[in-house]
């Protein structure tokens, strides 16, 4: 029960942060990516604020032997810079530049009651399953 509560609270903070920073407005994100147009620096402050917290806090957390309410840390194990990482990041970047949403804002913007995030998230799931089922 306690574990579920901290998960819910983390999700809530995440959604609240995306709302407050207006990342759920895709024009803000596109305005940041449009460096030769009328540049909107918002995203830089959002990412800067978030990474400052994680860089400092993760050091302390990961120096512990286990999380507070679970037995193990579930961390990514891959370390190598391989082809899927680069090609995947390129494909993601193209899609992000076209839509103006990445997955987090895509989910939270669902509460705005407009069609864009709904279509985006459906297409996201289709694209993700396409890679999963793509013969490798």
């Amino acid at each position, binding site marked *: 029960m306690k574990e579920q509560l901290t998960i819910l609270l983390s999700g809530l903070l*995440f959604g609240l942060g995306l709302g407050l920073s207006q990342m759920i407005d895709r024009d803000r994100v596109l305005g940041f990516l449009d460096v030769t147009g009328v540049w909107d620096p918002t995203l830089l402050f959002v990412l800067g604020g978030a990474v*400052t*917290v994680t860089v400092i806090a993760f050091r302390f957390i990961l120096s512990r032997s286990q999380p507070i309410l679970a037995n193990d840390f579930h961390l990514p194990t891959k370390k190598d810079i391989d082809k899927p990482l680069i090609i*995947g990041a390129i494909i993601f970047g193209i899609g992000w530049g*076209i839509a103006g949403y990445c997955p987090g804002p895509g989910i*939270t913007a669902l509460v*705005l009651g407009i069609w864009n995030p709904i279509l985006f998230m459906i297409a996201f799931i289709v694209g993700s399953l396409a890679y999963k089922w793509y013969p490798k």
Partner: protein
Amino acid sequence: MRKCSRNGVKLSNQKILDLTKIMADFNWLTALFGGVLIGSSATLLLAFNGRIAGISGMINGAITFSKQENWRWIFILGMLLGGIFYEYVLAPQPTPKSTFAPLAMIIGGLLVGFGTRMGSGCTSGHGVCGLGRLSIRSLVAVLTFLTTAIVTVFIVRHVLRLSF
């Protein structure tokens, strides 16, 4: 999608107008605070549950509907509740509703879904969490997708002159 038809004079006037609007709307302190909340969310999830707050992975795990991945739905529910609390309780004014762009959403969504699964992460997984862990792999991913997205927006807006 419609083509932009602006001539030079109009564009520069428009640019000044846009710039004034952005400066008036832009609140760096709120943006920074929003970012701190996102970082705190990732911190809380790692400290208590030992999990990484990467949202593409969150969705990919959730849609397997398996028992050990069910916790991811709770996180997604939290993201929606946080959004509702912001938009309908805290927001000084409603979040602007962007132009309805079905084609951009479908093409963009497909690419984001495919690419984040292939590259194992998005802005939150590689960005907020990966950079937090000082992962070189994530740094490479972040620089790659940021650069590609900037180039894409440049091509869409300034070469093809599409606006959506």
